[in-house]
Structures are given as structure tokens and as C-alpha cells.
């Protein structure tokens, strides 16, 4: 059923993909950054501090998406017991953690000039901190519990419980009164962000996804090597 994941040919595919992404990544990064920082217009209210959004929003999306995929893979692993899925979740977790922290930090930097405060314990920000804590627990379980099977079981459990937090983050701005503004980009209906700002935002998102793929593939490769050479614990 999931024979692709067992295939050791996957190693060759990773190499090819890594080379491909490496060849286009820096060109796209420079293009996206120049659009976000130079060519896009300032906001009518926030002025140039709107440019923080081009990092903040994609980082938050990636933080959420990574945890969702970790949780879904954990569920699949729990039901079907496919070992490779654990390797994938282990490789995604540090990326998601980094981007969640990035979203929180850039949000704080943006909050000072716009709201007038770095920090507010409103529902959106607090639930994002909870997400970061879940990531941290997930990573620490794999670091601290040396017994592989036990670590896998506990970490999948944490990921599945943490999945409940994801819709809370997403809808916190609609359910409760928060300082954080509601989403500008809606799945249905018109976005309340002008196209001259939406374009660099999506471009930055694409570049950051590529960066995630790079880090993920490298990490996944190390995890496979580590499995292949059982006695090798650290690289």
C-alpha cells in the first residue's frame, strides 16, 4: 500500500530533488526579497512596517502546515505502523518549530510600531505559543528518550493531541475578540489585501516552502543514513 516509502531508491530521488532545488533557490530568494523589500508599495496606514508581514505570514502558515502534516502522519503511523512516517515527522518538526518561533518573533517586532506593544496575551498569540510548546515537546521526546519505539509512541500521541490546537489557532481571531486582526486572505470571497502586496507575499511563501523542502530533504537523508548504520547515533 505504501511501498514507495519502503523503497531504498528514495535516496537517489532525494539527491536529485536537492540538486534541483539548490539550483533555483537563490535566484528565487533574491527575486522574492527584492519584491518584498523594495518593489512592493508601503501600506497606507502602517507604512514600511508592512514588509514584516512578508516574512511573518508565510512563517505562520508553514508552522501550522508542518504541525498538521506531522499529526496526520502520526495518525497514519499509529494505525498502519509504517516506520518511515516517523522518520518524516522527525524531519519536519525542527523546521516547523523554527518557523513558528519566527512568526512569533516577527509578530512581536511588527506589534510594537502598529499596536503599541510587543506582546499581548490574546487568543491568537497565546495559541501560537502553545503550538511552539507542542513542537518543543515533540522534539525533546526524540532527543531525551533513547528507546526508539517508546519515543515514537509518545511523540505521535503528543502530535495527535496537538492537532486540536490547529483549528483553535486558525479560528481564534473569529471566535473571540483579539488584538490580532482576522485573516486577510480568505479561501472563499475577495481578499482584503491589494494584489500588489499579495504577489510578493505568495512569492515569499513559495521561496520559504522551497527552503523547508531543502532542510527537510537533508534531514530526512540523515535520518535514513542513521537507520542504515544503526551504531551511528550522531552526525
Amino acid at each position: 500500500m505504501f511501498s514507495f516509502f519502503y523503497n531504498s531508491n528514495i535516496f537517489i530521488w532525494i539527491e536529485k530533488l536537492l540538486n534541483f532545488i539548490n539550483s533555483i533557490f537563490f535566484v528565487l530568494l533574491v527575486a522574492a526579497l527584492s519584491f518584498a523589500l523594495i518593489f512592493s508599495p508601503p501600506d497606507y496606514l502602517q507604512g514600511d512596517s508592512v514588509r514584516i508581514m512578508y516574512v511573518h505570514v508565510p512563517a505562520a502558515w508553514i508552522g501550522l502546515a508542518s504541525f498538521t502534516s506531522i499529526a496526520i502522519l502520526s495518525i497514519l503511523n499509529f494505525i498502519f505502523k509504517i516506520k518511515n512516517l516517523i522518520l518524516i515527522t522527525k524531519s519536519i518538526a525542527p523546521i516547523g518549530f523554527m518557523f513558528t518561533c519566527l512568526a512569533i518573533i516577527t509578530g512581536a517586532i511588527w506589534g510594537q510600531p502598529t499596536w503599541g506593544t510587543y506582546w499581548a496575551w490574546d487568543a491568537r498569540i497565546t495559541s501560537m505559543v502553545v503550538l511552539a510548546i507542542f513542537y518543543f515537546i515533540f522534539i525533546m521526546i526524540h532527543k531525551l528518550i533513547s528507546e526508539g519505539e517508546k519515543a515514537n509512541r509518545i511523540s505521535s500521541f503528543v502530535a495527535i493531541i496537538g492537532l486540536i490546537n490547529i483549528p483553535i489557532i486558525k479560528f481564534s481571531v473569529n471566535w473571540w475578540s483579539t488584538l490580532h486582526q482576522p485573516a486577510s486572505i480568505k479561501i472563499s470571497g475577495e481578499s482584503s489585501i491589494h494584489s500588489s502586496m499579495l504577489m510578493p507575499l505568495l512569492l515569499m511563501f513559495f521561496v520559504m516552502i522551497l527552503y523547508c523542502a531543502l532542510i527537510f530533504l537533508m534531514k530526512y537523508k540523515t535520518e535514513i543514513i542513521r537507520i542504515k548504520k544503526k551504531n551511528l547515533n550522531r552526525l
Partner: protein
Amino acid sequence: MLQKKVKKRASLLAVILTASVLSIFLILNSLNKNILYFKSPTEIKNSQDVDFNKKLRVGGMVKKDTLKINEEEIKFIITDFKNEIKVSFRGTVPNLFSEGRGVVAEGKLQDKKFFIADRILAKHDENYMPPELKKIMKEDAK
């Protein structure tokens, strides 16, 4: 088709998930008042047990043509288009604070209609656009 073990694990997972979703829902439901970052003037008007010694936050729009700034204090009215609260504040306000925009004031209620703030936060809405476009929109509105 599926193995018996697989079915068993799937149903166990379903039970755990429903139980935790339910418990989280109950927790959030009971915490509902505390999750709100600020109260609207209507919520304050309707609440029975307002603690005048406790700090709270009031949020809404700064009513147009009510912002008065003199050397000692800044006065304005927070409105949610149904009810209003007068606010008095001493200190600096964020750049985005102005008439007709969202605001969150932190401080103490004197009575249900008067609020002394010791911190003002500006609430930003979800609209992003370049300044030229805003100009065009304003001219269209005229």
C-alpha cells in the same frame, strides 16, 4: 480488507480524539470570558458584576469627531456603534491611533460610562493597500 488489529487501533484513536476534542471544547467554553482580550461597550453595559477596582480592557472604534487632545490628557469615545464609553488617557499613543480606527484601552472603569486608561493599543484591521489606492478610494467616496 483491513486487518483486525488495524481496525482496533483506528477505533481507539477515534475514541481518544473525540474525547480530547470534547474536553478541550468544554474547557474553552468555561474559560470563554477570560479568553476575550477586550470587552465591547455593549458587553460592559450588559454585564451585572463589573469590578471597578480590577483592570480590564475595552475595545471598539474611536468615534469620529470626539478625539480631544490637550496638554494634560487625551479624551475620546469608544463605540461599537450601539453603546459608547468615554475614555480619558494620559501618555503616548501608538502611531496608528486616530479617529474612526480600532482601539483597545487598558485601565479601570470609573462607572459604566467612564473609563480611565493607562495604556492605549491600536487595533489594526485586515485591510492592506498602497497609499495611492487609498487616495483614489477616498476621492471616489466624495
